[in-house]
């Protein structure tokens, strides 16, 4: 019962953060500020949703599974790399625009 409540809270919070990342993607003014939203909020959002899935599995089966947590682990390692590469592309793009 308590586990179910925690899972519900986590999943809604996670989904809210995912939405927040996309709102940032639409509302912020330029590419560098837009990078902030998805790299931080969306990554944490998926982390919370996966944690909810883990807690819910515990509530149903009664066994703790760490397997799901490899997804947020992978995302937390790769999100900075993606952001770094997109930032580099944006820098090159901005430089090319100045030249033209």
């Amino acid at each position: 019962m308590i586990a179910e409540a925690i899972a519900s809270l986590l999943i809604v919070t996670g989904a809210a953060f995912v939405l927040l990342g996309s709102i940032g993607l639409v509302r912020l003014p330029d590419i560098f500020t837009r990078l902030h939203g998805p790299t931080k909020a969306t990554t944490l959002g998926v982390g919370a949703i996966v944690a909810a899935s883990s807690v819910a599995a515990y509530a149903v089966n009664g066994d703790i599974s760490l397997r799901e947590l490899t997804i947020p682990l992978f995302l937390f390692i790769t999100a900075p790399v993606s952001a770094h590469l997109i930032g580099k592309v944006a820098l090159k793009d901005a430089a090319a625009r100045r030249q033209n």
Partner: protein
Amino acid sequence: MLTTAITISLVLVGAAVGLTLIRLALGPTMPDRILALDTLAIDAIALVVILGLLNATALSFEAALLLAIMGFVGTVALCKFLIGRSIID
């Protein structure tokens, strides 16, 4: 209670996908579109995990991990192509 929470979060993530698609369509630059595609991949992971929770199946885990890996590799390949016009150097 969990079913209600799942429905709410499906709506929220669905809205996120819609907003990301708006950014993908608007651009205006190439890095904006790559960022939107990367975000779309992560949103898809969120959807798959939530649907796995709804159907109480463990199969969705593999799909989510594959989406994570493919999304990352795709982003890196696109960026490398735009930086150096070659993917492998």
